[in-house]
């Protein structure tokens, strides 16, 4: 049996990598990749806590709770939608401004 803390350490590491990428990179696509990494770290946490919680009903011996997996599934779906919309925005900005650098995306600055 793998201890729960191993999963938590891995999830924290993946989340930290994603946070670093999202805060530090200049390229908008790299920032999106960092966000995907953060969502994956969160998903590992959700599924690990789902697996190590009391999911077995003592009386009927059946799996009674699936909320961790459902949350993870929602996160995957939202991440897919977010990636589609975000990359479409990036391509649109690239067509207009010929750049994908976040420092030069100041169209709304007034």
């Amino acid at each position: 049996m793998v201890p729960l803390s191993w999963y938590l350490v891995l999830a924290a590491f993946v989340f930290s990598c994603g946070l670093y990428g999202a805060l530090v990179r200049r390229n908008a696509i790299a920032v999106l990749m960092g966000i995907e990494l953060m969502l994956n770290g969160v998903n590992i946490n959700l599924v690990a806590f789902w697996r190590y919680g009391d999911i077995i009903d003592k009386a009927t011996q059946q799996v009674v709770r699936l909320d961790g997996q459902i949350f993870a599934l929602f996160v995957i779906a939202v991440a897919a939608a977010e990636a589609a919309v975000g990359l479409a925005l990036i391509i649109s900005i690239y067509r207009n401004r010929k750049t994908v650098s976040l420092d030069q995306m100041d169209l709304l600055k007034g």
Partner: protein
Amino acid sequence: MDIIQQLFPLPPIPTLQQAVFIPLALFTAVCALLVVLSPNLFHNALALVGTLFGVAGIYALLEAEFLAISQILVYVWSISTLITFAIMLSRGMMFGATSKTNKQAGTAIDGIVVIGFIGWCNFVSARSKLDVSIAVA
């Protein structure tokens, strides 16, 4: 011989699950580092695919097979394809004189230290058999 074994006890033999988990987690972690540290954007995308595969393996190890399949279908196929297309459609702009990172590295490392501290507290509390429900209540 006995003294040597007492002084340097062998680490406990990992179970099969642990023996699967350790290389899988190392692969995932190294790929996650490559995603944010490699200067080439295309290498970043390839490392992201590796990380997503590793996370799918972690799901399978946690007995969430449906999520593992969903991860491969949604992330490894769809999102990696989207990202690769976006990189190829906006190519040539970021390979130049400007640096790949901005000036927020200090702030980012502060945040990461906080996250790492929380993870370390998790690890220590799980090690010392603290009851989590008491800590929450």
